[in-house]
């Protein structure tokens, strides 16, 4: 293990990684000492969206299947964690993972019909699925209908069991741990045969089949892990906010579109692009939202209009996102040299 770390630190990327990890670990302490709850909250959101955008990108960047429906997995993960906690007193330490698994199963079930559609239509279908889930949860009494579910404040001695803490500080470490877990699973995955097969499917399904690849099977593998970690993101939401309702968790804009923009802004052809994208996009969009809502309260919806402008600008001007742009400018090693892919 020590040997592994030593070797990792000799590599330039390994050094960057170590520095970023150290900053991430220290930052919440600083926020807590200086009493900066907003900064802590923003960091938590960045991490949550990092987890989800990276998961989303396994489907889009690697497999070429663009989803506008990841709110489904987020919502299912959030509701599962909440229901286990509220109805069955299952600790969210377990519930978050069960939530991820349930989301992954939902993903597989949806994959069966949706992967029959060509790429554009797949994207459109995912929007439809999101809306349908919202409608179902609104009229489903067991999950609290349109009012949603709220978990009560628990006494001091149960705080650890129910993962209930004031502010975002503790949850940042939770999210960091889960992001770390995701990196540990995703990185070997994309470097393995599966990762190569996914990229072959993205490039050309007919060619992939001629190489012995079953596109449906591998799309389902991508869907499984993509939905799994997005569901885990939903679990973090539940423990942090102690409240889930169908309008919030199945929201096209503030969940699915946020994930999409974060992923695309960071760069979908880069493994860590979605994390970079989340840390750039989430603070900006939160700032824009708060600023516009307080400055122009009469122009409801204006901040989403601004999101549209941002998304259009990325699509037209920098479709490869921040990482692609950095690479083009020569700030990063070319992906050819690192054995990774490159998209024109």
């Amino acid at each position, binding site marked *: 293990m020590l040997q592994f770390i030593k070797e990792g630190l000799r590599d330039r990327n390994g050094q960057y990684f170590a520095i970023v990890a150290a900053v991430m670990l220290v930052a919440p302490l600083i926020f807590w000492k200086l009493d900066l709850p907003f900064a802590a909250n923003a960091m938590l959101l960045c991490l949550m969206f990092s987890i989800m955008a990276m998961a989303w990108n396994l489907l889009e960047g690697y497999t070429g299947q663009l989803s506008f429906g990841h709110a489904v997995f987020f919502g299912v993960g959030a509701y599962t964690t909440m229901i286990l906690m509220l109805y069955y007193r299952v600790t969210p330490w377990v519930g978050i993972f069960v939530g991820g698994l349930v989301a992954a199963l939902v993903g597989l079930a949806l994959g069966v019909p949706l992967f029959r559609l060509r790429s*554009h239509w797949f994207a459109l*279908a995912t929007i439809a699925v999101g809306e349908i889930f919202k409608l179902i949860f609104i009229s489903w009494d067991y999950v609290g209908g349109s009012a949603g579910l709220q978990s009560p404040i628990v006494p001091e001695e149960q705080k650890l069991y129910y993962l209930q803490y004031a502010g975002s500080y503790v949850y940042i470490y939770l999210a960091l741990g889960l992001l770390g877990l995701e990196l540990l699973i995703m990185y070997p995955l994309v470097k393995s045969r599966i990762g190569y097969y996914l990229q072959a499917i993205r490039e050309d399904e007919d060619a992939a089949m001629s190489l012995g690849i079953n596109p449906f099977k591998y799309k389902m593998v991508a869907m499984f892990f993509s939905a799994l970690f997005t569901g885990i993101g939903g679990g973090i939401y539940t423990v942090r906010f102690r409240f889930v309702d169908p309008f919030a968790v199945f929201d096209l804009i503030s969940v699915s*579109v946020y994930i999409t923009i974060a992923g695309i802004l960071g760069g979908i052809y880069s493994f860590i692009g979605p994390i970079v994208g989340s840390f750039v996009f989430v603070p900006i969009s939160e700032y824009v939202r708060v600023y516009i809502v307080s400055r122009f309260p009469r122009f409801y919806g*204006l901040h989403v*209009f601004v999101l549209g402008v941002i*998304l259009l600008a990325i699509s037209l001007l920098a479709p490869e996102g921040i990482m692609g742009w950095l690479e083009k400018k020569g700030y990063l090693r070319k992906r050819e040299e690192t054995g990774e892919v490159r998209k024109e």
Partner: protein
Amino acid sequence: MIGLDYVANAVVSGILIGSVYSLVGMGLALIWGIMDVINFAQGDYMMLGAFVTYWAFTLAGVDPLLSVPLSFLVTFALGVLTQRVVIERVLDAPMVSQITATFAVLLMIRYGAEAAFGPYTKRIYVTYADVIYRFGTISLQLPRLIAFFVSLGVAVAFYVFLKTTYTGVALRAVSQNRMAAYLMGINVRKMYWIAFGIGVGISAVGGTLVATFLPIHPEMGGFYALIAFIVVVFGGFGSVFGAYISGIIIGVTESVSALFISPSLKDVVAFLLFIAIILVKPTGLFGTEQR
């Protein structure tokens, strides 16, 4: 027990509302058929059509039926503008840029409208709104009946346009073989903006019709885009007239199923129908295997 007359009523009202779904679906199918681009903002151009009608009625007292050409022309112009400024730049770009660009247009139109008009439900009260005809046990609301005939008229006019005019024939040529059409001297780029303009214009007429009997809202496009999408998949993707028929089928399905389950779940039924179709016949009801 639900009586037969209820079912008959539901079928008829399903056909009437379905004819509006058809218009939105036809626009989407046309754009896909010609350009291989999905316009994610299709439902939002329909919303614009509804609001053009609303403002023409509220500010100038223009009868909604007279604003049909107005809302067509306004959205046609906006569609051509969108095509020129956005779509044209991403036609040769990777798939993801095409999708995110038209999705960005969706966000800008939907929430731009919301910022401009306010997040409120609006309604037009025309004098003939409550005129009801009865045929035996079936009762028909006049505005819905008008909507059906206008929609039928638009579909027929569009059919005649495709079959008899030079532009119509050129459009069909482009949809069948872009390269061959280009070699035959057809200005493909011009066909693109015509297709996009007509595609969103037809949907906007649907918006105008809906505004005469249903409340309208800046975010209404989301619902109709969902329906349009189901309609187009059902109708066999690029098939414009398949879309017309399947719009009516979806309308009937929804309105009949609303008799048996909570009306708020009727869209879920339409969606399940859609899932069933792509599982059984992925090329859609009226689609064929491609070589």
